[in-house]
């Protein structure tokens, strides 16, 4: 076994690999860019080497720097993680030349599978089902349009070298192809330094289901179940699970066996993932093979009990697979939510900055439920503009899908983040979505269910009552504590009233009566006449200052995020995708609050605001120009993604405040309309 390995990556995956290496008694070397000097993976590793400036093209993607780090530290093997150099055959080659083990497959497998065209050829030969598409290289957008017309719309345009959703575009028409081709090329160059693009048929109502394979250098190859990754937003995976709620045993076996056949065809070794697109009749087509550890590998680990990183390291060290196909048993259900630094309420624009608060749920195994959080950040750390906006992978595992989803809902509400925007409310909403719960999902789920973006889950009656009860509990604790202040007039302390009115977003008013009961606080919901409609008991050890309420309402576990609202008008509660202000007032206080005028937000419709902190790439209009709705006004880049800002309505530009190269803060005014 190796004595020391180097992890040529950053963030959560570097931390993930280090954990297993530590468990195996292997020394670890981290590499880091200037921006990652204080990153978690650097702290966790035994040694750390700086490999250059913040931009990954100058650090994590620079082979020479990593090779030097290997040489300087005497590492015997390299785990590449995912992204960066993980699927770069030149890197694997260079390591081989330097006599260092690559914890991944051989060069040939990477080369073949890294090329969408070659991989399809191999897949066909190995009798793996494939999607109709164009195999050759594409010179320009004209050729792309011709090919797309031949295949028939819709088509998918994708960077040959890319994994995940990077550089991928779906085109419904010729003009889409023209626009999509150019931006796919640009992103491909930026992200992978490789501008090759391919086009294939886009299958409608598809599911994304992938097979994990594991192979050693001795000709043993097995498949380790599937993962369903259909919940994607703009082709970026958001929620993954294992097993798939859709596959039957026969299909699973067929997909598994085809995957093994494909792996064997390229003498695959190490962990790999064969991605399939599955239509509603359970026809499946090979998409691509990722020759690396997949982001969502934890769900497979949770249902199989196999540490995939450990297996990869053992295989790289030349060991035989200790698991045979028959040993692979799928137990229970695992869910994974990717926590992204992005604002779900503002079209998921990236959010960067300091993690003022970062309090993930505790990792634990309790009552048959496992909570796991793979992360590379910590409270007080920085989410920089240079790298992927994913900050954590929150996983739960339980006996059934329903239990795993429930556990995820609670874990998400326990996760407290401040300082940046994040997608937890959105993830919470999906967990509660009926269609998601039913398992009837496709890769179009998010686009179909949230066509106008995400605005939070509307509060229904049941939710309103429960949140009102929680708010009363919080208020009772705050109000009771306030009555215990020193310096009171003797015998004339404040007697708290029993009757209150909870206003949710100042729209729904719920009259309640609260008093100390034997089991906690008893809260009755009243009707307009003051008659009791329903009674509830709430109990928790929550105290002021806590940002998460964990307790029981009517004997049922409830987790709610609680922040005191500005102006002290109650609490801002976050619960399973809903965000609501709950103000608890005395009856008189409520009556008087109704007299308060509604404040009107200032009109910003004639302004183009910068939606996130970023760099202005280009301004496409000038003062006096008339623009039509949908026209491109400016392009702003953040986290390597170019965001096109379009006119929301027709108008004439009156002021332009920014120019290309400007670094803008969120809500900075880029331009104004007349």
């Amino acid at each position: 076994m190796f004595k020391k390995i180097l992890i040529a990556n950053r963030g959560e995956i570097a931390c993930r690999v280090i954990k297993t290496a530590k468990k195996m008694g292997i020394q670890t070397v981290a590499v880091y860019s200037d921006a990652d000097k204080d990153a978690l993976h650097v702290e966790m590793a035994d040694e750390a080497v700086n490999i250059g400036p913040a931009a990954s093209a100058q650090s994590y993607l620079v082979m020479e720097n990593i090779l030097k780090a290997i040489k300087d530290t005497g590492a015997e093997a390299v785990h590449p993680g995912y992204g960066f150099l993980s699927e770069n055959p030149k890197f694997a080659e260079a390591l081989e030349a330097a006599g260092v083990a690559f914890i991944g497959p051989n060069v040939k497998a990477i080369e073949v599978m890294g090329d969408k065209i070659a991989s399809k050829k191999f897949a066909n030969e190995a009798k793996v089902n494939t999607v109709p598409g164009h195999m050759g290289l594409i010179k320009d957008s004209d050729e792309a349009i011709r090919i797309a017309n031949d295949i028939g719309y819709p088509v998918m345009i994708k960077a040959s070298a890319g994994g995940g959703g990077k550089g991928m575009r779906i085109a419904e028409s010729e003009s889409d192809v023209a626009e999509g081709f150019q931006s796919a090329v640009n992103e491909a160059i930026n992200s992978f330094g490789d501008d090759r693009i391919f086009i294939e048929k886009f299958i409608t109502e598809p599911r994304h289901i992938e097979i994990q394979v594991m192979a050693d250098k001795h000709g043993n190859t097995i498949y380790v179940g599937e993962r369903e990754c259909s919940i994607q937003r703009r082709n970026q995976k958001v929620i993954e699970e294992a097993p798939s709620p859709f596959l039957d045993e026969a299909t699973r076996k067929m997909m598994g066996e085809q995957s093994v056949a494909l792996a064997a065809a390229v003498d695959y070794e190490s962990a790999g993932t064969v991605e399939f697109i599955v239509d509603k009749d359970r026809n499946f087509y090979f998409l691509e093979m990722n020759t690396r550890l997949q982001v969502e590998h934890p769900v497979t680990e949770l249902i199989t009990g196999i540490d995939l990183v450990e297996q990869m390291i053992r295989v790289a060290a030349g060991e035989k697979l200790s698991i045979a196909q028959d040993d692979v048993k799928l137990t229970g259900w695992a869910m994974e939510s990717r926590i992204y630094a992005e604002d779900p309420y503002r079209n998921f624009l990236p959010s960067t900055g300091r993690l003022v608060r970062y309090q993930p749920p505790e990792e634990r195994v309790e009552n048959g439920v496992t909570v796991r959080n793979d992360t590379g950040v910590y409270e007080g750390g920085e989410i920089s503009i240079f790298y992927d906006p994913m900050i954590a992978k929150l996983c739960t595992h339980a006996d059934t899908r329903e239990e795993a989803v429930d556990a995820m809902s609670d874990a998400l509400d326990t996760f407290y983040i401040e300082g940046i925007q994040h997608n937890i409310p959105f993830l919470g909403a999906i967990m509660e979505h009926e269609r998601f719960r039913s398992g009837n999902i496709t890769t179009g789920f998010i686009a179909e269910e949230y066509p106008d973006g995400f605005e939070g889950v509307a509060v229904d009656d049941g939710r309103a009552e429960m949140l009102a009860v929680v708010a009363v509990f919080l208020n009772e604790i705050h109000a009771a504590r306030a009555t215990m202040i020193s310096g009171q007039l003797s015998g004339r302390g404040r007697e708290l009233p029993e009757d209150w009115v909870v206003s949710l977003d100042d729209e729904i008013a719920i009259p309640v009566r609260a008093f100390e009961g034997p089991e906690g606080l008893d809260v009755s919901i009243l009707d307009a006449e003051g008659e009791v409609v329903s009674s509830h008991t709430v109990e928790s050890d929550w105290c002021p200052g806590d940002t998460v309420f964990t307790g029981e309402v009517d004997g049922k576990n409830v987790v709610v995020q609680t922040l005191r609202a500005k102006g002290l008008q109650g609490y801002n509660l976050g619960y399973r995708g809903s965000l609501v202000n709950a103000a608890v007032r005395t009856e008189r206080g409520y009556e008087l609050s109704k007299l308060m005028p509604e404040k009107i937000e200032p009109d910003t419709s004639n302004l183009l605001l910068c939606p996130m902190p970023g760099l202005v790439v280009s301004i496409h209009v000038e003062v006096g120009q008339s623009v039509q709705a949908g026209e491109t006004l400016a392009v702003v880049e953040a986290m390597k993604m170019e965001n096109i800002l379009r006119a929301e309505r027709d108008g004439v530009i009156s002021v332009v405040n920014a120019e290309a190269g400007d670094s803008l803060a969120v809500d900075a005014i880029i331009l104004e309309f007349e």
Partner: protein
Amino acid sequence: MKDILRQLEERRAAARMGGGERRIEAQHSKGKLTARERVELFLDEGSFEEFDTFVEHDCQDFGMADNKTPGDGVVTGWGTVNGRTVFLFAKDFTVLGGSLSRNHSKKINKVQDMALKMGAPIIGLFDAGGARIQEGVDALGGYGEVFSRNVKASGVIPQISIIMGPCAGGDVYSPAMTDFIFMVKDTSYMFVTGPDVVKTVTNEEVTAEELGGAKVHSSRTSVADGAWENDVVAMTQLRRLIDFLPSNNRADVPERPFFDDAERKEMSLDTLIPENPNMPYDMKELVVKFVDEGDFFEIQEDFAKNVITGFGRLEGRTVGVIANQPLVLAGVLDSDASRKAARFVRFCDCFSIPLVTFVDVPGFLPGTSQEYGGLIKHGAKLLYAYAEATVPKITVITRKAYGGAYVVMSSKHLRGDFNYAWPTAEIAVMGAKGAVEIIHRKDIGNDEKIAAHTKEYEERFLNPFVAAERGYIDEVIMPHSTRTRVARALALLKDKDLDNPWKKHDNIPL
């Protein structure tokens, strides 16, 4: 007998109706509550004891004899906020526009006198048309009586004014004499002369909102210490503020049960200071992580944001926090920031509230606009305030403490009790660039030499240890232990006993 009792009830009910239903409705339609509704919201349920319900004016001129309403435009009395006594007067706009008559002012005087006698805070809720012109000099004299009592009570009991409607002319000077003024957004304004007079005299056209609205006074003039959304929020926030304040200058700070741990370590503070010394960071993060339960009541949040002032608690006891804010103008001290902080320090010193100062200050702001604006005198106010203060004073230097500003910001030399520094502190006369250009003037132009000198200067001075070696810094502490260390120091200083020499009063450079 029963009839007599019923008569009282009837008279009371009539008095409580103030100017009558129509005027109450008009008040509501403007988004405002009536005086009694405000009082009801502000005080503990049922605790209001009213005085002078039946007082009427005695003006005979201009037909006023037939225009009398019990209460005479102001509701006065006392009650409790979480069981603690407060006195108050609330102008009743529904009665003669809340205008001030001789008897109206006498009602206010009565609660002022009583508040002083009992050592309890007094609150004024303002929503009125100014002097009752029909009463002539009697009204002016009435103002004078109120002002004079404001001054007498200053520094003895907390006095707080909330502007909840018009407040003009003579009415503005009583609030101006009190410790804090808060305004309600969109429904209140405050000025010495209104838009009409302004137009006549200066030909300037300006709306009441532009001339003296909540936004102007809370962000531009600093007349107001804050602006609140509406009457309900204002009354809730006022209760919150009262919970922070001692009842008088001899009372201890209020104490209440707390749910936070004095030993709480905030590891994330170890990464608060950016690598690059020219990068800003948000000092409020430190303040919020430092105080109990993250509960910080900011004073003058929208004015001179380069310094943060406000109340928090440590182990359930009130502290006043003053902190330079590197996010705004690099945290520099200018005239506005100096005045803002100085007034806050003096309030805390009046009422035995310990001062905790977080320092990251590159110096005083240079330039003609500052110097012509009297920066010397304004900066001196803060220096004076800190030097004069005898309450417990704890200072934590997080990063820059340069030049005169180092001395001003509650330094050891101004009788600081505990002066801590983070390892990232840079305590020096000035930054490296400026210093090297003065010390090594002859080498300017020789980049190599300048670079070497700069490095030498940085290594020698841009750290907390030169000051620590001399005892100007008591201890260099880890950022994550700030709360723990300060809490311990405050526990020790609870019985601090320090007096200034007897004087009639001091002579702060006003």
